[in-house]
Protein backbone atom coordinates (compact mmCIF):
# COMPACT_ATOMS: atom_id res chain seq x y z
CA UNK A 1 0.00 0.00 0.00
CA UNK A 2 1.01 3.55 -0.52
CA UNK A 3 2.54 5.85 2.01
CA UNK A 4 -0.38 8.25 1.39
CA UNK A 5 -2.48 6.33 3.85
CA UNK A 6 -0.17 6.95 6.76
CA UNK A 7 0.56 10.60 7.05
CA UNK A 8 3.44 12.04 9.01
CA UNK A 9 2.22 14.33 11.73
CA UNK A 10 3.76 17.20 13.59
CA UNK A 11 5.83 16.28 16.70
CA UNK A 12 3.21 17.63 19.12
CA UNK A 13 0.26 15.78 17.65
CA UNK A 14 2.41 12.64 17.24
CA UNK A 15 3.10 12.62 20.96
CA UNK A 16 -0.58 13.07 21.75
CA UNK A 17 -1.54 10.37 19.27
CA UNK A 18 1.06 7.99 20.73
CA UNK A 19 -0.28 8.57 24.23
CA UNK A 20 -3.83 7.94 23.03
CA UNK A 21 -2.75 4.72 21.27
CA UNK A 22 -1.29 3.37 24.55
CA UNK A 23 -4.59 3.88 26.37
CA UNK A 24 -6.81 2.51 23.61
CA UNK A 25 -6.57 -1.13 24.63
CA UNK A 26 -7.96 -0.42 28.11
CA UNK A 27 -10.59 1.94 26.70
CA UNK A 28 -11.80 -0.65 24.18
CA UNK A 29 -12.04 -3.45 26.73
CA UNK A 30 -13.89 -1.23 29.21
CA UNK A 31 -16.33 -0.09 26.53
CA UNK A 32 -16.95 -3.66 25.36
CA UNK A 33 -17.75 -4.69 28.94
CA UNK A 34 -20.04 -1.69 29.33
CA UNK A 35 -21.85 -2.54 26.08
CA UNK A 36 -22.34 -6.13 27.26
CA UNK A 37 -23.79 -4.89 30.57
CA UNK A 38 -26.11 -2.45 28.78
CA UNK A 39 -27.32 -5.30 26.54
CA UNK A 40 -28.06 -7.35 29.67
CA UNK A 41 -29.99 -4.44 31.17
CA UNK A 42 -31.99 -4.04 27.93
CA UNK A 43 -33.02 -7.70 28.02
CA UNK A 44 -33.96 -7.47 31.71
CA UNK A 45 -36.10 -4.33 31.52
CA UNK A 46 -38.51 -5.72 28.91
CA UNK A 47 -39.72 -8.13 31.60
CA UNK A 48 -40.21 -5.40 34.24
CA UNK A 49 -43.87 -4.53 34.95
CA UNK A 50 -43.39 -0.86 34.13
CA UNK A 51 -45.49 1.37 31.90
CA UNK A 52 -44.86 0.68 28.23
CA UNK A 53 -43.70 4.22 27.47
CA UNK A 54 -41.07 4.04 30.22
CA UNK A 55 -39.65 0.75 28.93
CA UNK A 56 -39.66 1.96 25.30
CA UNK A 57 -37.94 5.21 26.33
CA UNK A 58 -35.32 3.30 28.32
CA UNK A 59 -34.67 0.90 25.43
CA UNK A 60 -34.25 3.79 22.99
CA UNK A 61 -31.89 5.66 25.34
CA UNK A 62 -29.78 2.55 26.02
CA UNK A 63 -29.58 1.73 22.29
CA UNK A 64 -28.50 5.29 21.52
CA UNK A 65 -25.83 5.08 24.25
CA UNK A 66 -24.48 1.82 22.75
CA UNK A 67 -24.62 3.30 19.26
CA UNK A 68 -22.68 6.40 20.30
CA UNK A 69 -20.02 4.44 22.17
CA UNK A 70 -19.38 2.27 19.12
CA UNK A 71 -19.20 5.12 16.60
CA UNK A 72 -17.14 7.50 18.74
CA UNK A 73 -14.69 4.97 20.22
CA UNK A 74 -14.57 1.76 18.14
CA UNK A 75 -15.01 3.72 14.89
CA UNK A 76 -12.56 6.41 16.07
CA UNK A 77 -14.83 9.40 15.41
CA UNK A 78 -13.59 10.85 18.71
CA UNK A 79 -10.05 11.02 17.31
CA UNK A 80 -10.88 11.77 13.65
CA UNK A 81 -11.58 15.09 11.99
CA UNK A 82 -15.11 16.44 12.71
CA UNK A 83 -15.96 16.21 9.01
CA UNK A 84 -16.26 12.40 9.33
CA UNK A 85 -18.81 12.88 12.13
CA UNK A 86 -20.73 15.47 10.09
CA UNK A 87 -20.74 13.21 7.01
CA UNK A 88 -22.03 10.20 8.92
CA UNK A 89 -24.64 12.20 10.81
CA UNK A 90 -26.00 13.61 7.53
CA UNK A 91 -26.84 10.03 6.51
CA UNK A 92 -28.08 9.20 9.97
CA UNK A 93 -30.36 12.25 10.20
CA UNK A 94 -31.82 11.63 6.73
CA UNK A 95 -32.41 7.98 7.65
CA UNK A 96 -33.96 8.93 11.01
CA UNK A 97 -36.09 11.64 9.39
CA UNK A 98 -37.33 9.23 6.74
CA UNK A 99 -38.18 6.64 9.38
CA UNK A 100 -39.99 9.24 11.50
CA UNK A 101 -41.94 10.56 8.49
CA UNK A 102 -42.95 7.07 7.35
CA UNK A 103 -44.06 6.06 10.82
CA UNK A 104 -46.02 9.30 11.20
CA UNK A 105 -47.66 8.90 7.77
CA UNK A 106 -48.69 5.32 8.31
CA UNK A 107 -50.05 6.05 11.77
CA UNK A 108 -52.43 8.63 10.28
CA UNK A 109 -55.99 7.36 9.99
CA UNK A 110 -56.31 8.39 6.37
CA UNK A 111 -53.44 6.17 5.30
CA UNK A 112 -54.68 2.99 6.97
CA UNK A 113 -55.82 0.27 4.53
CA UNK A 114 -59.55 -0.10 4.13
CA UNK A 115 -61.07 -3.24 5.66
CA UNK A 116 -61.69 -5.96 3.09
Amino acid at each position, binding site marked *: *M*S*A*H*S*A*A*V*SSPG*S*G*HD*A*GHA*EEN*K*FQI*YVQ*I*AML*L*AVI*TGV*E*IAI*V*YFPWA*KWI*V*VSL*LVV*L*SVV*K*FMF*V*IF*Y*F*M*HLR*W*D*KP*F*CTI*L*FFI*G*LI*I*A*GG*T*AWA*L*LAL*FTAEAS*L*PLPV
Partner: protein
Amino acid sequence: MSSHAATATIDHHHDPTTSTGIPNKKLLMWTFLASDCMFFGALISTHLIYRLHPPAGGLDPKQIFSVELTSFSTFVLLMSSLMMALAVTAIQKGNLKSCRWSLLTTIFFGMIFLGCQVYEFEHFVHEKNMTLSNSLLGSTFYTLTGTHGCHVAIGVLWLSLMYVRSFKVASRPSWLNHQLLHALTFIVVLLLSLKVTLGLVHSLQTVPTFGAAISDFFSHQGIYIGGFLLALWGLFWFARPRGTVQFNESNAIDVESMGLYWHFVDIVWIVIFTAVYLLEYL
Protein backbone atom coordinates in the same frame (compact mmCIF):
# COMPACT_ATOMS: atom_id res chain seq x y z
CA MET B 1 7.39 -4.92 10.31
CA SER B 2 8.54 -1.48 11.24
CA SER B 3 9.80 -0.28 14.56
CA HIS B 4 7.89 1.52 17.29
CA ALA B 5 9.87 4.65 16.55
CA ALA B 6 8.27 4.82 13.14
CA THR B 7 4.82 4.36 14.66
CA ALA B 8 5.25 7.44 16.83
CA THR B 9 5.62 9.63 13.73
CA ILE B 10 2.52 8.30 11.97
CA ASP B 11 -0.82 9.99 12.51
CA HIS B 12 -3.44 7.44 11.50
CA HIS B 13 -6.36 9.84 11.86
CA HIS B 14 -5.22 12.70 9.62
CA ASP B 15 -3.62 12.92 6.19
CA PRO B 16 -2.23 16.34 5.22
CA THR B 17 -1.78 15.21 1.60
CA THR B 18 -5.54 15.28 0.95
CA SER B 19 -7.65 18.44 0.67
CA THR B 20 -9.89 17.37 3.57
CA GLY B 21 -7.05 16.19 5.80
CA ILE B 22 -8.80 12.81 5.99
CA PRO B 23 -7.37 9.72 4.28
CA ASN B 24 -9.35 9.15 1.06
CA LYS B 25 -10.15 5.52 1.88
CA LYS B 26 -11.61 6.56 5.22
CA LEU B 27 -13.66 9.33 3.60
CA LEU B 28 -15.00 6.87 1.04
CA MET B 29 -16.00 4.41 3.75
CA TRP B 30 -17.76 7.07 5.87
CA THR B 31 -19.68 8.23 2.78
CA PHE B 32 -20.73 4.68 2.00
CA LEU B 33 -21.78 4.09 5.61
CA ALA B 34 -23.87 7.28 5.59
CA SER B 35 -25.70 5.98 2.51
CA ASP B 36 -26.08 2.53 4.08
CA CYS B 37 -27.75 4.21 7.09
CA MET B 38 -30.54 5.34 4.76
CA PHE B 39 -30.83 1.84 3.30
CA PHE B 40 -31.26 0.21 6.70
CA GLY B 41 -33.42 3.12 7.89
CA ALA B 42 -35.91 2.31 5.12
CA LEU B 43 -35.90 -1.42 5.90
CA ILE B 44 -36.32 -0.93 9.66
CA SER B 45 -39.15 1.62 9.11
CA THR B 46 -40.94 -0.80 6.78
CA HIS B 47 -40.77 -3.55 9.38
CA LEU B 48 -42.00 -1.25 12.16
CA ILE B 49 -44.88 0.12 10.07
CA TYR B 50 -46.20 -3.37 9.36
CA ARG B 51 -45.71 -4.36 13.00
CA LEU B 52 -47.73 -1.34 14.12
CA HIS B 53 -50.57 -2.43 11.82
CA PRO B 54 -50.49 -6.23 11.96
CA PRO B 55 -53.02 -8.05 9.80
CA ALA B 56 -55.75 -10.01 11.56
CA GLY B 57 -54.77 -13.61 12.22
CA GLY B 58 -51.09 -12.89 11.63
CA LEU B 59 -48.22 -14.66 13.37
CA ASP B 60 -47.30 -13.68 16.94
CA PRO B 61 -43.57 -12.83 17.10
CA LYS B 62 -43.43 -13.72 20.81
CA GLN B 63 -44.30 -17.30 19.89
CA ILE B 64 -41.61 -17.35 17.21
CA PHE B 65 -38.59 -15.34 18.38
CA SER B 66 -36.02 -16.67 20.82
CA VAL B 67 -34.67 -13.82 22.93
CA GLU B 68 -31.95 -16.09 24.36
CA LEU B 69 -30.47 -16.90 20.96
CA THR B 70 -30.69 -13.30 19.78
CA SER B 71 -29.10 -12.00 22.99
CA PHE B 72 -26.25 -14.44 22.50
CA SER B 73 -25.83 -13.25 18.88
CA THR B 74 -25.79 -9.65 20.07
CA PHE B 75 -23.11 -10.38 22.66
CA VAL B 76 -21.01 -12.23 20.07
CA LEU B 77 -21.23 -9.34 17.62
CA LEU B 78 -20.24 -6.84 20.34
CA MET B 79 -17.19 -8.94 21.17
CA SER B 80 -16.30 -9.15 17.48
CA SER B 81 -16.36 -5.34 17.41
CA LEU B 82 -13.91 -5.28 20.32
CA MET B 83 -11.55 -7.66 18.50
CA MET B 84 -11.83 -5.59 15.32
CA ALA B 85 -10.89 -2.44 17.23
CA LEU B 86 -7.91 -4.29 18.73
CA ALA B 87 -6.85 -5.48 15.25
CA VAL B 88 -6.78 -1.86 14.03
CA THR B 89 -4.78 -0.75 17.08
CA ALA B 90 -2.35 -3.65 16.61
CA ILE B 91 -1.57 -2.87 12.96
CA GLN B 92 -1.27 0.84 13.76
CA LYS B 93 1.48 -0.14 16.19
CA GLY B 94 3.05 -2.48 13.62
CA ASN B 95 2.20 -5.59 15.64
CA LEU B 96 1.40 -7.98 12.78
CA LYS B 97 1.02 -11.13 14.89
CA SER B 98 -1.49 -9.50 17.23
CA CYS B 99 -3.36 -8.03 14.25
CA ARG B 100 -3.69 -11.46 12.63
CA TRP B 101 -4.97 -13.08 15.82
CA SER B 102 -7.46 -10.27 16.34
CA LEU B 103 -8.66 -10.63 12.74
CA LEU B 104 -9.05 -14.39 13.19
CA THR B 105 -11.03 -13.88 16.40
CA THR B 106 -13.26 -11.34 14.67
CA ILE B 107 -13.87 -13.83 11.85
CA PHE B 108 -14.61 -16.53 14.45
CA PHE B 109 -17.22 -14.35 16.18
CA GLY B 110 -18.66 -13.30 12.82
CA MET B 111 -19.09 -16.94 11.84
CA ILE B 112 -20.81 -17.71 15.16
CA PHE B 113 -23.24 -14.87 14.45
CA LEU B 114 -23.91 -16.18 10.94
CA GLY B 115 -24.34 -19.71 12.29
CA CYS B 116 -26.91 -18.44 14.80
CA GLN B 117 -28.76 -16.62 12.03
CA VAL B 118 -28.81 -19.65 9.72
CA TYR B 119 -30.06 -21.77 12.63
CA GLU B 120 -32.69 -19.15 13.50
CA PHE B 121 -33.97 -18.90 9.91
CA GLU B 122 -34.07 -22.68 9.53
CA HIS B 123 -35.93 -23.00 12.83
CA PHE B 124 -38.45 -20.31 11.90
CA VAL B 125 -39.15 -21.87 8.48
CA HIS B 126 -39.35 -25.53 9.49
CA GLU B 127 -40.58 -25.40 13.10
CA LYS B 128 -42.59 -22.16 13.20
CA ASN B 129 -43.78 -22.20 9.58
CA MET B 130 -42.81 -18.56 8.96
CA THR B 131 -41.49 -18.14 5.42
CA LEU B 132 -40.58 -15.14 3.31
CA SER B 133 -43.91 -15.22 1.47
CA ASN B 134 -46.55 -16.69 3.79
CA SER B 135 -46.84 -13.74 6.18
CA LEU B 136 -46.22 -10.03 6.37
CA LEU B 137 -44.04 -10.54 9.45
CA GLY B 138 -41.94 -13.11 7.57
CA SER B 139 -41.50 -10.82 4.56
CA THR B 140 -40.28 -7.80 6.52
CA PHE B 141 -38.32 -9.82 9.10
CA TYR B 142 -36.36 -11.94 6.60
CA THR B 143 -35.74 -8.97 4.31
CA LEU B 144 -34.34 -6.85 7.14
CA THR B 145 -32.35 -9.45 9.08
CA GLY B 146 -31.31 -11.24 5.86
CA THR B 147 -29.89 -8.00 4.45
CA HIS B 148 -28.01 -7.48 7.69
CA GLY B 149 -26.78 -11.09 7.54
CA CYS B 150 -25.51 -10.48 3.97
CA HIS B 151 -23.58 -7.48 5.31
CA VAL B 152 -22.05 -9.69 8.02
CA ALA B 153 -21.15 -12.35 5.42
CA ILE B 154 -19.48 -9.71 3.22
CA GLY B 155 -17.64 -8.45 6.31
CA VAL B 156 -16.39 -11.97 7.12
CA LEU B 157 -15.22 -12.39 3.52
CA TRP B 158 -13.43 -9.03 3.63
CA LEU B 159 -11.80 -9.93 6.97
CA SER B 160 -10.66 -13.26 5.53
CA LEU B 161 -9.14 -11.58 2.48
CA MET B 162 -7.37 -9.05 4.71
CA TYR B 163 -5.99 -11.88 6.84
CA VAL B 164 -4.70 -13.66 3.74
CA ARG B 165 -3.32 -10.35 2.42
CA SER B 166 -1.20 -10.05 5.58
CA PHE B 167 0.88 -13.01 4.35
CA LYS B 168 1.97 -11.41 1.05
CA VAL B 169 5.69 -11.89 0.58
CA ALA B 170 7.55 -9.26 -1.42
CA SER B 171 10.16 -11.47 -3.04
CA ARG B 172 7.89 -14.15 -4.55
CA PRO B 173 6.88 -13.62 -8.22
CA SER B 174 3.94 -16.09 -7.94
CA TRP B 175 2.38 -14.34 -4.93
CA LEU B 176 -0.99 -13.80 -6.64
CA ASN B 177 -1.64 -17.51 -7.27
CA HIS B 178 -0.45 -18.29 -3.78
CA GLN B 179 -2.74 -15.67 -2.24
CA LEU B 180 -5.73 -16.80 -4.30
CA LEU B 181 -5.26 -20.41 -3.19
CA HIS B 182 -4.80 -19.25 0.40
CA ALA B 183 -8.03 -17.21 0.23
CA LEU B 184 -9.91 -20.10 -1.39
CA THR B 185 -8.74 -22.49 1.34
CA PHE B 186 -9.79 -20.01 4.01
CA ILE B 187 -13.28 -19.69 2.52
CA VAL B 188 -13.60 -23.49 2.29
CA VAL B 189 -12.65 -23.76 5.99
CA LEU B 190 -15.28 -21.18 6.92
CA LEU B 191 -18.07 -22.82 4.93
CA LEU B 192 -17.24 -26.33 6.13
CA SER B 193 -16.98 -25.18 9.76
CA LEU B 194 -20.46 -23.68 9.46
CA LYS B 195 -21.83 -26.84 7.86
CA VAL B 196 -20.24 -29.14 10.46
CA THR B 197 -21.31 -27.01 13.44
CA LEU B 198 -24.92 -26.79 12.24
CA GLY B 199 -24.84 -30.55 11.58
CA LEU B 200 -23.73 -31.16 15.18
CA VAL B 201 -26.49 -28.91 16.55
CA HIS B 202 -29.06 -30.67 14.34
CA SER B 203 -27.95 -34.12 15.55
CA LEU B 204 -28.00 -33.06 19.20
CA GLN B 205 -31.53 -31.70 18.81
CA THR B 206 -33.09 -34.49 16.78
CA VAL B 207 -31.50 -37.61 18.31
CA PRO B 208 -32.66 -38.36 21.89
CA THR B 209 -29.44 -39.68 23.49
CA PHE B 210 -26.02 -37.99 23.42
CA GLY B 211 -24.13 -41.08 22.26
CA ALA B 212 -26.55 -41.75 19.43
CA ALA B 213 -26.43 -38.05 18.45
CA ILE B 214 -22.64 -38.10 18.15
CA SER B 215 -22.82 -41.31 16.12
CA ASP B 216 -25.47 -39.74 13.87
CA PHE B 217 -23.32 -36.62 13.52
CA PHE B 218 -20.23 -38.54 12.36
CA SER B 219 -22.21 -40.75 10.00
CA HIS B 220 -23.83 -37.75 8.28
CA GLN B 221 -21.03 -35.20 8.50
CA GLY B 222 -17.97 -37.49 8.18
CA ILE B 223 -17.05 -36.33 4.69
CA TYR B 224 -17.41 -32.67 5.66
CA ILE B 225 -15.32 -33.17 8.82
CA GLY B 226 -12.61 -34.78 6.67
CA GLY B 227 -12.75 -31.91 4.20
CA PHE B 228 -12.65 -29.38 7.03
CA LEU B 229 -9.56 -30.98 8.62
CA LEU B 230 -7.81 -31.16 5.25
CA ALA B 231 -8.56 -27.50 4.50
CA LEU B 232 -7.46 -26.54 8.02
CA TRP B 233 -4.13 -28.27 7.42
CA GLY B 234 -3.89 -26.29 4.18
CA LEU B 235 -4.40 -23.06 6.13
CA PHE B 236 -1.51 -23.91 8.46
CA TRP B 237 0.62 -24.74 5.42
CA PHE B 238 -0.15 -21.41 3.77
CA ALA B 239 0.54 -19.55 7.03
CA ARG B 240 4.09 -20.89 7.40
CA PRO B 241 6.88 -18.22 7.41
CA ARG B 242 8.14 -17.65 3.84
CA GLY B 243 10.08 -14.40 4.15
CA THR B 244 9.53 -10.75 4.90
CA VAL B 245 5.87 -9.83 4.44
CA GLN B 246 4.55 -6.64 2.83
CA PHE B 247 2.02 -5.73 5.50
CA ASN B 248 2.78 -3.10 8.12
CA GLU B 249 1.66 0.22 9.63
CA SER B 250 1.15 1.70 6.18
CA ASN B 251 -1.68 -0.84 5.71
CA ALA B 252 -3.42 0.40 8.87
CA ILE B 253 -5.84 2.50 6.82
CA ASP B 254 -6.99 -0.64 4.93
CA VAL B 255 -7.65 -2.49 8.18
CA GLU B 256 -9.30 0.61 9.67
CA SER B 257 -11.64 1.06 6.67
CA MET B 258 -12.64 -2.58 6.94
CA GLY B 259 -13.10 -2.06 10.69
CA LEU B 260 -15.46 0.86 10.06
CA TYR B 261 -17.62 -1.42 7.93
CA TRP B 262 -17.58 -4.13 10.59
CA HIS B 263 -18.52 -1.73 13.40
CA PHE B 264 -21.32 -0.35 11.23
CA VAL B 265 -22.74 -3.87 10.93
CA ASP B 266 -22.61 -3.99 14.73
CA ILE B 267 -24.45 -0.68 15.22
CA VAL B 268 -27.15 -1.72 12.76
CA TRP B 269 -27.65 -4.86 14.83
CA ILE B 270 -27.89 -2.75 18.00
CA VAL B 271 -30.91 -1.01 16.42
CA ILE B 272 -32.40 -4.22 14.98
CA PHE B 273 -32.06 -6.01 18.33
CA THR B 274 -34.12 -3.33 20.05
CA ALA B 275 -36.57 -2.45 17.27
CA VAL B 276 -37.30 -5.92 15.90
CA TYR B 277 -36.80 -8.26 18.85
CA LEU B 278 -37.02 -6.54 22.26
CA LEU B 279 -40.00 -4.30 21.49
CA GLU B 280 -42.07 -7.44 20.73
CA TYR B 281 -41.76 -8.55 24.35
CA LEU B 282 -43.50 -5.49 25.81
